[in-house]
């Protein structure tokens, strides 16, 4: 009898813990979703007074600000991925496979942009771009995003190249393939899943980046996070919420899929 009571109590406690966690995690997201469909909503009403899809139509209008921001954001993120991969594939290969002096120091140097309070860095980068006449341009924003994303692309590319099986590479070399040919046909394809994962990381980082764009991109470059900020601070919670929901889609999708892209063999080597 007593054991049964204890069992019921433990079960109830477990359900309670999950309920509290679910409310804490999903409550803020639910509030955002409610605002995206609210027409009028003010105190003391617990839920919107009237509902509407009007703001969705405004956001997704092909000529609207939101569509322009979405295109700008995706364009910047794609360019950032290209810059980051072009730099980190050779760097990752060297860090994983070649005899490199000061290897640990070099790994740490790539981490530092992420391990430093960055607002004052961006303020001064903006000054540099201003002097160069690049302030408020897409190349400036891309360079800032790529610098910040490099730790992901370099570290993950390094781990991916370290996980490549060397024997197949040696076999190709024995059969007369050149270094470069063996790299292109054997090494790079084996490292490709890890490098794809790093590209997605860099893409998301760029898509979500606010602070750097806020200082370097203004006033000409308006990405989705800047649109969200302007709408939210201007009191238009509907536009802000819909923009936030658009940004949530890739974030949640990646959260659900990340383990498929990054296998344990690569994950365990990151940062080494």
């Amino acid at each position, binding site marked *: 009898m007593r054991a049964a009571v204890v069992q019921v109590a433990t079960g109830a406690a477990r359900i309670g813990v999950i309920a509290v*966690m679910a409310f804490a995690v999903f409550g803020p997201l639910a509030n955002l979703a409610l605002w995206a469909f609210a027409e009028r909503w003010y105190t003391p009403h617990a839920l919107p007074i009237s509902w509407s899809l009007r703001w969705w139509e405004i956001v997704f209008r092909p000529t609207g600000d939101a569509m322009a921001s979405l295109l700008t954001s995706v364009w910047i993120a794609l360019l950032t991925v290209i810059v980051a991969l072009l730099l980190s594939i050779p760097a990752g290969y060297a860090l994983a496979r070649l005899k490199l*002096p000061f290897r640990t120091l070099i790994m740490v140097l790539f981490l530092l942009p992420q391990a430093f309070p960055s607002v004052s860095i961006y303020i001064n980068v903006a000054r540099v771009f201003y002097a160069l006449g690049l302030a408020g341009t897409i190349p400036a924003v891309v360079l800032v995003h790529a610098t910040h994303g490099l730790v992901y692309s370099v570290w993950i590319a390094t781990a991916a190249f370290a996980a490549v099986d060397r024997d197949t590479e040696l076999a190709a070399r024995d059969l007369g393939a050149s270094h470069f040919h063996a790299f292109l046909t054997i090494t790079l394809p084996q490292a490709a899943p890890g490098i794809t994962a790093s590209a997605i990381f860099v893409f998301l980082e760029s898509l979500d980046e606010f602070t750097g764009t806020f200082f370097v991109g203004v006033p000409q470059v308006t990405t989705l996070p800047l649109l969200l900020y302007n709408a939210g601070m201007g009191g238009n919670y509907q536009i802000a919420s819909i923009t936030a929901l658009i940004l949530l889609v890739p974030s949640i999708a990646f*959260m659900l899929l990340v383990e498929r892209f990054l296998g344990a063999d690569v994950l365990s080597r990151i940062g080494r």
Partner: protein
Amino acid sequence: MSRSSALALLFVAPALALVAVFFFHPLALSVISAFMAEGHGPTFANFARAAELYSGDIIHTIFVVTSATLLTLVVAIAISGALTLSASPGFVAALKFVYRWPLFVPFIVAAQCMRTFLARNGLMNNAFVALGVFDPMTTSSYLDWRGMVITFAWKQVPFVTLLIAGAMASLDRATIEAGRDLGASRLRVLVELVIPQVMPTLLVAATLSFVLMLSVLSVPMMVAGSQPTLITVDMAFRINAYGDYGTANALGVISYLIASGAAIFYLRHTLKDDGR
């Protein structure tokens, strides 16, 4: 230097150049500008002005970021502990499913969520009123330091949990089972056996979170509009309102000092562990 290591350096050089030009160069500029009066040589005037105008915000920043880091750690340890020690597979699966969602949610989206969720008429107060926990007349807004701490923790808990739970999963199960067999409660096993073994991971996660929160501009701007605020907002204000690079950079150097405080804390604890 051998030919092969010269080649290796050549492969790494372009990536390093990007970091040098767009990170170390502005970093140096920020430090130099903090100690310079515009066109008048070295000075401490920028720090004097920063202290005079923003000493309250500096203390507030340390307080908010430390509180958020501690809250993140406590919740993340509780979740990882439950994931590691719970006897119920169903509970573990449900917890695993729920805790991860904010992992890649951008800070600015988290800020917009919390601006509405934690407001006086937000979903949190309304839910508590509906449950009869709060009286509708006495509800209040949490959009101040509490809102910032909650938003930071909401966003950082999944990341820190992922790291800590990963470290706990690789521990030797035999010691944990032995502790349980000797009659120790799960809490005691967690505090005395599990946490000490994952301390290095815990410290890395805490330090990374602390510094990351020091870099965030959107959360203090959107979640806590009024004074006092965090120094990231003050820096943006000095630039946008006055073009005052001296004071902004002095605040920047102060943020580096706060971050290095966290780094020193981390190093002291790691070195102590190594000495054992």
